[in-house]
């Protein structure tokens, strides 16, 4: 089948690669900063495991072409994916306008982007009007198929999904999407078909629920400190309750990333503009912003509110492991807070340092090439992202490099007994010593 994909961010690229791999003839058109030249050479805007290989193979097999000519992209296919970041709604409107102008027959638009609820219906009405104005008699359908991919595991999330949420009122469209996605729906039927708006809302609801769960577990962990309770023990007790389970139950220094928080924020904003206040979700968001500085606050108290001249080592900048992105990452706020107090900061991250230099405009931060170099003369270490390489470091080497062996663990990955055995002061989130 011929497929056109508008948007070459992570979701668009994964969709393009996976659909090309299963035999479709795919044209992908970037919207935003990605350039066709670079993409055509296999240079990906994001450092996602397996993505470069997938795209290069499809380019070689000529199942996939990157295109900048709108008209070609529209005329190529009757199945068109919208895969645009939520904050680029206006660009998606342009895509719809172009489809309305150039499409010559039946059109099925599959929207993967997180736009305000009701956008798919609105786009469908807009296309119908455009067709009517041109006197074109052809079927138009816009369906919602929100993406649930995560950075770091995006390809497997797409090709072996937990579920495929599909929102449409049109049986014919549902049939066509199901056929297109058949290769990724092999083991059991993963399709959850529902109304268009329900599908759009499901995406928001999932993120809202997960964000709330993280913020709640963080709050429980922070509170546990006041009672000298180790949250790790409590986590075991909580997770083993089958009503609760272990997923998303790790306390830490807050969540970040490009879309997770912004989906919740957009939902809160939409509701507010309608005159409703989403109290709980607002609290979840502000709680998370506060949590991003949890290690800073511990150090602030540990060093008696005076961080001037202190050297703080930071391991991990990306908002989670296996991604090169620092957008909304706790590391940014933490580093800003440290530098504002006059501390020197030395950072190491295996992948995210280039992206960090794009986001960080301040001074006072030294990027080092080796995780142990960051510890040179450090008064304390902040562990902020749980990259695998940080899990079992050489504790003796760490201690010999640091001025004072003090570790603030933002992801609770270390064993406090072991660290204390090496002579470290250890502070986790809801565990370890209390400042």
């Amino acid at each position, binding site marked *: 089948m011929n497929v056109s994909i508008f948007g070459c961010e992570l979701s668009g690229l994964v969709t393009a690669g996976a659909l090309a791999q299963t035999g479709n003839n795919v044209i992908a058109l970037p919207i935003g900063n990605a350039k066709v030249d670079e993409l055509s050479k296999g240079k990906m805007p994001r450092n996602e495991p397996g993505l470069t290989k997938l795209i290069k193979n499809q380019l070689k097999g000529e199942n996939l072409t990157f295109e900048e000519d709108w008209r070609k992209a529209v005329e190529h296919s009757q199945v068109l994916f919208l895969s645009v970041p939520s904050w680029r709604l206006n660009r998606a409107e342009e895509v719809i306008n172009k489809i309305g102008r150039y499409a010559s027959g039946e059109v099925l638009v599959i929207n993967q982007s997180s736009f305000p609820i009701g956008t798919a219906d609105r786009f469908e009405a807009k296309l119908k009007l455009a067709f009517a104005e041109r006197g074109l008699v052809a079927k138009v359908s816009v369906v919602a198929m929100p993406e649930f991919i995560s950075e770091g595991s995006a390809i497997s999330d797409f090709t072996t999904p937990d579920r495929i949420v599909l929102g449409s009122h049109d049986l014919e469209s549902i049939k066509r999407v199901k056929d297109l996605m058949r290769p990724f729906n092999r083991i059991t039927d993963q399709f959850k078909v529902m109304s268009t708006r329900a599908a759009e809302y499901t995406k928001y609801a999932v993120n809202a629920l997960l964000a709330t769960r993280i913020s709640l577990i963080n709050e429980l962990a922070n509170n546990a400190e006041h009672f000298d309770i180790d949250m790790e023990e409590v986590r075991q007790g909580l997770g083993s309750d089958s009503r609760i389970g272990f997923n998303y139950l790790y306390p830490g220094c807050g969540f970040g990333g490009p879309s997770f928080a912004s989906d919740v924020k957009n939902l809160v904003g939409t509701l507010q503009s309608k005159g409703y206040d989403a109290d709980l979700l607002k609290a979840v968001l502000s709680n998370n912003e506060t949590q991003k*500085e949890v290690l800073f*606050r*511990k*150090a602030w*108290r540990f060093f008696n*509110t005076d961080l001037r001249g202190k050297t703080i080592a930071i391991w991990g900048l990306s908002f989670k492991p296996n991604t090169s992105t620092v957008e909304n990452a706790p590391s940014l706020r933490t580093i800003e807070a440290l530098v*504002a107090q006059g501390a020197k900061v030395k950072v190491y991250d295996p992948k995210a340092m280039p992206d960090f230099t794009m986001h960080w405009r301040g001074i006072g931060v030294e990027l080092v090439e080796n995780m142990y170099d960051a510890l040179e003369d450090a008064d304390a270490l902040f562990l902020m992202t749980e990259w695998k390489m940080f899990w079992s470091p050489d504790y003796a080497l760490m201690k010999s490099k640091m001025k004072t062996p003090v570790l603030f663990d933002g992801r609770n990955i270390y064993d406090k007994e072991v660290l204390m055995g090496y002579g470290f002061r250890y502070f986790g989130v809801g565990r370890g010593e209390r400042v």
Partner: protein
Amino acid sequence: MGVEKSSAWQALLEHSKSGVSSEKLVNLFKDKTRSERFSIDLQEMFLDYSKNRITDQTLELLLDLATQQQLPNWIDKLLSGEEVNDTEHRSAMHSALRAGGQGVKGKALEVQGQIESEFEKMSLIVEKIRSGHWRGFTGKPITDVVNIGVGGSDLGPLMMTNALQTIKSPINLHFISSIDGTQTSNILKNLNQETTLFLLASKSFTTIDTLSNAETAKDWLAEVLDDSDTLLSQHFIGVSTKPDMMSEWGIPKDNQLVFWDWVGGRYSMWSTIGLPIALQIGMTGFREMLDGARIMDQHFGEAPLSENIPVLMGLIDVWNINFLDIHAKAILPYDARLKYLPSYFEQLVMESNGKSVNRAGEKVAYKTCPILWGEVGPNAQHAFYQLLHQGTQAVMCDFIAPVERDDFDAHGLTEKEGSLRYQHELALANCFAQSRVLMLGDDAIPISIKEQFNSPFKHYPGNQPSNTILLKSISAKTMGMLVALYEHKTFVESVIWEINPFDQWGVELGKLIAKETHAAIKDTKKAEEFDASTQGLIKRVI
């Protein structure tokens, strides 16, 4: 010889008796050029003083009086930092605070360096707090700042931050002033110790009102924080002319902002006392306010007396008070953001000129400062305007209104914006209508409905004088101009009356006696010498 015996004063007296004082404003307006001649523009400010019972000759004689009283010389002395506050042997250099090093001489020039270096320190503190990097004891950013101060250490920042409330601030500001502590207990109920910072603003750092509220604030913090060093270093900033007193109280050096004894309390908003203003609108905004005031300073120093806004307003007030026998003045802003402007001017004007002894220490034989009060105009229309229109007191009024509004999009197309535009027009219509009716009285009634007003209860005498000040909009700049205008206008009057506007001995005795009375409440034996009424009251509260 008092000024009342001087030739210029006598000439005015004669002039007033010649019929001008009873002349009806409605007749004066037969001169079609009057409003144009009796109004003046200065950048974003416009003053219409034509609705005063004055003629060209009145103005001429008033200017003669100003010249006789050596007003230009006094203005020069004030602006160059000479010792104009003779009872306290100080200069009054509020203008130097906003000069920004430009166009100043004498002592006012010498202090420019120390002013700028203190503003730089203030700027760092402002930036740190506004950017969320001033941390409370647990490391959370400060979100709420409570200014504890009274009089000049309270009213200026309170008035100005309210006036400029449309400028969105990252910090929630609160003000505590009154000695009774009810504001304190109420405000603290809604705040969190982790994220609250107190500003102790006191010129002398001995003001009992401020220090007693500060102790309560300290106790409140100590409920959750044992470490008194952290409590003081992260939760208190001091602003005072007395660094030693601040240190003694426990404010660390880094948290101290100073100003100087040559800044009067009621003129101190332009100094580091303006910290809450800078927290609200940023240091850039604060400097815009200073710039606005500097425009007025330069105008006051350079414009000829006959075109000098503070001079004209001051002289016209003198005319109204001393020659038309009007002893009350109402400040009537037609914008709810200027809610505290009347209170601010009450202090500025009445604490400055509420005096009955001249610079030589002799009792004056004429009236000085009027009773001044006010209220947001549209609200006051439903309160005391009845008295303005039909009472037995003559009252002079200052109407103040912004031409444009920046709190909504004036060209916006939404219904709400349309409604706000309509409300703004209504406010201006009311402002202009009231000054017109006060001036014309019954003559304002349209002929077509005259019949309906044929009743002694519906009689409007009119002839109440007023000024109208229009500001382009309410901004840091125009507010700076407006406040500086009233400061200088007040000074002009003091020069005519030969009084020192920069001391305030009248408020000292009460403070002293309050101490003695407090001792008597603690130990009733000490009350035995008191009058029976005071003794009786003390008995009721112990």
